């Protein structure tokens, strides 16, 4: 099975919620993966306990961009409470692949950014 299946390639080529906003977010973060220099910025907007808007930007491999994009899509509209319980499993489920240890950091860079943003609240 290829890691680069259609959904991943689609989200890599056309990442959803890509591009950060100039409006002040409820929380934001910048994170990077020192193993390849990839970096991602993420912003979340919260209204009445719900993530009403989320966006990210940055550079990375297909897996990191696709996973951040899928995660943003999945996160939008959810209660902060729910989002706080997201873990690696959540992301892998969205990606529909098994990720080897060598690629775990790529697959979870979006999750790391999201967690870091939430931690600043």
């Amino acid at each position: 099975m290829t890691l680069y299946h259609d959904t991943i390639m689609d989200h890599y080529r056309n990442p959803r919620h890509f591009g950060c906003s100039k409006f002040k977010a409820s929380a934001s973060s910048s994170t990077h993966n020192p193993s390849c220099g990839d970096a991602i910025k993420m912003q979340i907007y919260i209204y009445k306990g719900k993530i009403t808007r989320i966006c990210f930007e940055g550079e990375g491999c297909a897996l990191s961009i696709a996973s951040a994009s899928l995660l943003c899509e999945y996160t939008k509209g959810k209660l902060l409470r729910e989002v706080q319980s997201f873990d690696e499993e959540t992301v892998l489920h969205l990606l529909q692949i098994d990720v080897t240890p060598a690629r775990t950091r790529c697959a979870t860079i979006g999750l790391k950014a999201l967690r870091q943003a939430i931690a600043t609240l």
Partner: protein
Amino acid sequence: MNTIRDRFPFFSHNPHVVYLDSAATTLKADVALQALNEYYTSYSVNIHRGMYPLAQKADLAYHASRKKIAHFLNAQTPDEIVFTKGATEGLNLLASSLGQSLINPERGVLTSVIEHHANFVPWQQIAKKHNAPFQVALINPLTMTVREICDEFEKNITQDTAILALTHISNVTGTVLPIQEIAHRARQINPHIIIVLDMCQSVQHMSIDVQQLDIDFAVFSGHKCFGPTGIGVLYGKKSRLDNLLPYQFGGDMIYEVGLSQSSFAEAPSKFEAGTPPIAQAISLASALEFVQEIISSDCHNNLKDLRAYCVKQFEKLFPNDVVVHQSKHLDSCAIVCFTVNRCHPHDVAHMLGEQNICIRAGHHCAQPLHKHLNIPSSCRVSLSVYNTTDDIDNLMQGITRVITQLS
């Protein structure tokens, strides 16, 4: 026809694998595997102080291995060869022991920006611990000439540079550093300087003469020269090893143990606490005999041609898509470092992997170098004697698919 590939049982298990990751670890030569197997199946007993014939056989084999390795490196005596579990352990041993006796707030360590983390972080940390200066020569392995590289080292060396730790060949770009020239200039400025050489990427490719290179210490790992994992060599000039403090304590490294005091054995035993990797040490000597064999055959030239072919194919087939990062002025050995425009190295390597082509991507344990060259990460093809032009052609086809898939 018997080819060099037949000497690597790996290929009968993996006939379709295109293995281009030998800088990470080489495949294992038949003679090395036989030596391992022979020890484990027919005389797998402990060495040191065994009075029965099998123990003596193991003891002799272990010491014969040290002798062969000394010969291979042209060391003065077998006592200059210390077995470690790998290059990383050897460098940590040196950093810790030299650090304790030689460095202080006035006297520090100089290394270079191209080093593998194994020859960088131990020095950085030991310097920190002793509040000593830690300097990094900012050499550029792609653009600088021999002279510029020597000048950059020279600029950083003073009477107070206690240790100079540098690599023989960059594990990222394959650039061969002019060690003899650097050592010569370093000793002109400071005759007492201790020179530590990381030979991880050179022992499998060239005949090494530690005396001619004029270095004090050197390290390498067995698994990068067709031998087993879990074994490495620390070479040290006899006088240097004698003055070096032990690194670990325990059995076989002592002379006499009392309730409140102990005295230590002489080098190399002083640095080999506990039961050593016996099988691996014996096997390593066989692996190095194999290296000797290929160095004296024309394999070495073939490898040079193969590397040139790889670079030429990249330039011919992907003039706008692939950038090869190689030295303009110095020799490059067995490694081709490259990036593919608009394709992340992780994706390139992963997609090649899905086609059974093994290369490596990332920072190759050389983050300072990547930052210095302003390349976030790179792809690395590393060649060895078992590679052929077919492997390179397969790689090129693989890259074509990757570019189509990713763009």
